[in-house]
């Protein structure tokens, strides 16, 4: 049968109930635009917030402490070995290690050039967990010289108050040249070491010394064989993993908010965008329902003519296909327009809001295009089935 819709157009009452057809088109357009935009936004959020944590070899490192509240502030809020072991068992935690702190009094002074001295705390952690480990960061028993890794944040704080104290401001590279006298107080008196800052760490807010030095020093000056840790360092694939955040929340572990705040922002944004996507699906469903009412009404009003066409020898299957095809162009125009508009929004967002930064592509993600194609196929299939069903029931 070489006939087209044109042949039978005069026998169908397509021109009636145009308002519901128009609103279903508008609804479909808005729904598809919302859904495609939500998916693109979801992908953008993942892309933009992926690299907001200091990472090393593909892992995030975050430090946690136990939450100190008014109720538990008198207790020992340090981590036991069992606590750390439990963390290691979690699938989303790749490794966990306690930060050992000094169990004796330690004091640092910088000699005559920088007349500054302070009591300080020392900590040590496995080298794996430190972002910058120079080869000189090691200590042998009997060695007078102790390498130190210093927090970049502390250096920044020092540089803030140094001018007011008539102290010189220091750069990250010049700090290595300063000889620090490290005084360790023990029961047998004070022992002095020479400290050298060998690296500055962005990741760990602490004064780090080699692990074997602190173990030796804790035994020698603090008489402590093993010490519970106040801080634990976690190695994880994604510090923003919702499972990890839930675990930490349940255990009432406090996490450095700077390191995970993007995770929380990401969670909230993803929830908002998912909600928007859900709403979009609802709008699409309503639009398709409205269109199905239009189709059913059109078929009901053309019932006599359609029945007579079938009586004359027109195939119900062919009629369904031809009638369904009639709206493919309208559906394709709506969905392709929504896709192009989503593409334009993405381009403008990347171009103006992010000033064309490379971290986000100005083009649509392939899954957005695939979703548009899927929606087009779905709507055509739904319409075809509906028309076929309606014609079969004539």
């Amino acid at each position, binding site marked *: *049968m070489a*006939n087209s819709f044109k042949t039978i157009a005069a026998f169908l009452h397509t021109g009636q109930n145009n308002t519901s057809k128009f609103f279903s088109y508008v609804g479909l357009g808005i729904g598809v635009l919302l859904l495609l935009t939500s998916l693109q936004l979801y992908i953008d959020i993942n892309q933009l917030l992926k690299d907001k944590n200091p990472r090393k070899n593909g892992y995030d490192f975050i430090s946690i402490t136990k939450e100190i509240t008014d109720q538990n502030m008198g207790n020992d809020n340090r981590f036991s070995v069992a606590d750390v072991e439990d963390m290691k068992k979690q699938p989303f935690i790749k490794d966990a290690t306690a930060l050992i702190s000094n169990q004796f009094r330690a004091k640092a002074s910088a000699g005559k050039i920088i007349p500054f001295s302070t009591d300080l705390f020392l900590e040590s952690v496995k080298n794996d967990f430190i972002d910058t480990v120079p080869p000189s960061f090691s200590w042998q028993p009997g060695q007078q010289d102790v390498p130190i890794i210093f927090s970049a944040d502390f250096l920044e704080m020092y540089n803030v108050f140094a001018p007011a104290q008539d102290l010189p401001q220091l750069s990250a590279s010049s700090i290595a040249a300063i000889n620090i006298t490290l005084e360790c107080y023990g029961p047998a008196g004070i022992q002095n070491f020479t400290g050298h800052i060998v690296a500055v760490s962005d990741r760990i807010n602490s004064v780090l010394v080699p692990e074997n030095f602190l173990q030796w020093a804790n035994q020698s000056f603090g008489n402590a064989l093993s010490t519970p840790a106040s801080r634990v360092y976690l190695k994880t694939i994604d510090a923003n993993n919702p499972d990890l955040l839930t675990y930490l929340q349940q255990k009432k572990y406090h996490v450095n908010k700077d390191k995970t705040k993007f995770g929380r922002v990401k969670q909230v944004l993803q929830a908002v965008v998912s909600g928007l996507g859900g709403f979009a699906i609802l709008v699409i469903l309503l639009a398709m329902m409205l269109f199905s009412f239009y189709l059913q009404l059109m078929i009901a009003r053309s019932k006599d003519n359609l029945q007579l066409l079938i009586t004359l*020898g027109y195939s119900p299957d062919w009629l369904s296909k031809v009638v369904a095809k009639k709206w493919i162009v309208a559906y394709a125009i709506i969905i392709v327009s929504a896709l192009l508009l989503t593409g334009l929004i993405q381009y403008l967002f990347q171009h103006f809001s992010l000033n064309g930064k490379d971290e986000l592509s100005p083009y649509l993600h392939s899954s957005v295009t695939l979703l548009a194609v899927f929606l087009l196929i779905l709507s055509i299939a739904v319409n075809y089935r509906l028309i076929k069903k309606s014609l079969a029931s004539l």
Partner: protein
Amino acid sequence: MTINIVNVIPVFLEKEKIETSAIWNKRVAFNKGEKLQIIAPSGSGKTSLIHFIYGMRKDYQGEIVFGEKNIGTFSAEQFAQLRQNTLSIIFQDLKLFPEQTVFKNLEIKRTLHPFQSESQIVEMAAKLGIENKLNRLVKTCSYGEQQRIAIIRALQQPFDFLVMDEPFSHLDENNRKIAAELIEVEAAKRKAGLILADLKRVEYFNADRILHL
């Protein structure tokens, strides 16, 4: 090709009407190329028989077999194929699209499986005296004119059989003659069989066989 009516009994028909019939509850064959007239008084199930053969109703017992195929088991798609290629019809109640023009009514059948050219529609309309009505809406035509439209429409497709239910009931003698001739010529072109059902013997229709329903 043969249409076999095998022990067909309409479920609604009275017993005595079945017993006296030459078709109901009998085995009857309608052959391609044959001209058959069925004479059926009112209420004997004439229109029902035409509708059974055309597949519009299934409220009968027995079998109607086209060639080797029992049409009682046909799907809507199979009926569509049958009506496009093998079987044409002139309904007693004409079944035209009243809101469409005469031409559109003929063209919708012709385009389904074109056997005639568009110009042949005009020729046939001229023969039957409705050439000047082609662009008028069917609902504005007289019943006699509408009957001629239905006859021309039935001749737009290829067929092995043409079934007709009182096709000339509203035609004057002249038009009856012309219409019967036209139908016979078109049937001869297709080597088709004609089955005409009417209340009485129809003049100008040269039946090879007459059956009383």
